[in-house]
């Protein structure tokens, strides 16, 4: 019963992904604390690990309030969307040679589709709240996704060209002799920026920029629904890290002294830390700056990268 797509695999991946996403809140607070010369939560349990449980208990008992002016069904639907899309995308990732849920021929496209769908959570949530700040947040989320999705996809086309497949497992196997982060360095940079924007995290957290628009699209959310937005965000952080590792850092490939899954976990952990470091170090750009950066810098860079990759691939191929 072991192997890709087995019941054990499915449940293990689901539980581990959600569990890690919950513990990322702890990791983020500890790491940011350390980088700001503080300690972060360290009271509940060893190293403060129980903090997550305590927060969970707290958020379960909070009043789950739906504003009377809200569009109720949509309001309830939005947090479900973000959880669903975030967890769905974990199904297409090859974690190790025999660990994974499903290997689609068009896995990469499906993954991109899932991440773009998750913006509906922000858009619908903000729209259903009937709150001008929330609406501003959703508008920003929509515009941000539209513009950053473009070169996120374009950046990945270089990887697809080199590996000749949309299948994520084959992409990893194509990196046996050289990770794509070397040959596709610019694509990697562009994808990293786009991934931060996709997950709506600082420095690109404009949809929820709390200094400008209260809490953006989840202003009106409370209790467990807010918790779902929160966990959804961390799920997408985790997912983006996994995707970067799979696409550019050779997935489970690594020297033999560690098992493949350990390599995968180690690399992913590294990228999660990079995400948190970005949040700790970089300020949020203005909205127009973010837009012009996307269209005027990132798009040309990814197009040129695509052109050069295609040219070189053709030249080497003949």
């Amino acid at each position: 019963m072991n192997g890709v797509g087995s019941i054990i695999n499915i449940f293990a991946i689901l539980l581990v992904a959600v569990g890690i996403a919950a513990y990322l809140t702890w990791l983020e607070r500890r790491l940011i604390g350390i980088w700001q010369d503080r300690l972060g939560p360290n009271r509940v349990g060893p190293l403060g690990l129980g903090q997550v449980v305590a927060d969970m208990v707290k958020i379960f008992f909070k009043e789950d309030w739906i504003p009377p002016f809200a569009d109720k069904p949509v309001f309830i639907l939005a947090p479900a969307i973000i959880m669903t899309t975030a967890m769905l995308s974990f199904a297409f990732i090859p974690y190790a040679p025999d660990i994974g849920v499903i290997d689609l021929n068009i896995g990469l496209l499906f993954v991109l589709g899932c991440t773009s769908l998750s913006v509906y959570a922000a858009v619908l949530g903000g729209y259903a709240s009937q709150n001008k700040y929330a609406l501003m947040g959703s508008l920003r989320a929509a515009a941000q996704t539209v513009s950053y999705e473009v070169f996120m996809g374009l950046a990945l086309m270089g990887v697809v060209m080199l590996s000749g497949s949309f299948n994520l497992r084959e992409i990893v196997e194509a990196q046996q002799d050289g990770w794509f982060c070397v040959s596709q360095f610019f694509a990697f940079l562009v994808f990293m920026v786009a991934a931060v924007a996709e997950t709506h995290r600082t420095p690109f957290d404009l949809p929820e920029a709390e200094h400008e628009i209260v809490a953006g699209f989840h202003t009106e959310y409370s209790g467990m629904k807010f918790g779902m937005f929160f966990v959804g965000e961390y799920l997408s952080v985790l997912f983006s890290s996994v995707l970067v590792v799979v696409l550019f850092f050779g997935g489970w490939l690594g020297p033999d002294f560690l098992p493949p899954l350990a390599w995968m976990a180690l690399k992913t952990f590294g990228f999660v830390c990079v995400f948190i470091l970005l949040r700790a170090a970089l300020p949020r750009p203005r909205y127009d700056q973010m837009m012009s950066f996307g269209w005027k810098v990132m798009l040309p860079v990814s197009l040129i990268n695509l052109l050069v990759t295609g040219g070189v691939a053709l030249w080497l191929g003949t």
Partner: protein
Amino acid sequence: MKLLSLLLSQFTGMWLVLTHTFSKADTVQYPEQKPALFPRYRGRIVLTRDPDGQERCVACNLCAVACPVDCIALKKTEDDDGRWYPEFFRINFSRCIMCGFCEEACPTYSIQLTPDFEMCEYNRQSMVYEKEDLLIDGTGKYHDYNFYRVAGKSIGGKDKGEAENEAAPIDVKSLMP
């Protein structure tokens, strides 16, 4: 070019933050580790006595006026010697913001803030301190100051002109200088 330097500055910023991984945290782990409090720390308020052991407060109400949250209440009375003192003196610490304005306003160094902030209570009413709770036996931060010894007001045992650095009162009916 400008773009590159901007890009570089992002990375130097990230590097700077990353170096803080190894710097020591400034956190004082409070209940186990006590913070260093200095003598002029603004904490719990006391009423002090002068070097002779008498109450310093002359019930002038300046502290109550200066207090931005109006948490001081007092009433003046007078003893047989003609000394003024507060009949009651009440500070509501659930409103006090420890700003120290009362200490600055006080002409007699009576009201002083001390380096103690551990005054939590379960009952809000217990945050209201009466004069018995506020009055201490010592002189606080100013050891030698005695208002009545330097002020011109006459009280029992000290007449006009007997205070420190005070000239004898002028006899306004005399022509002599």
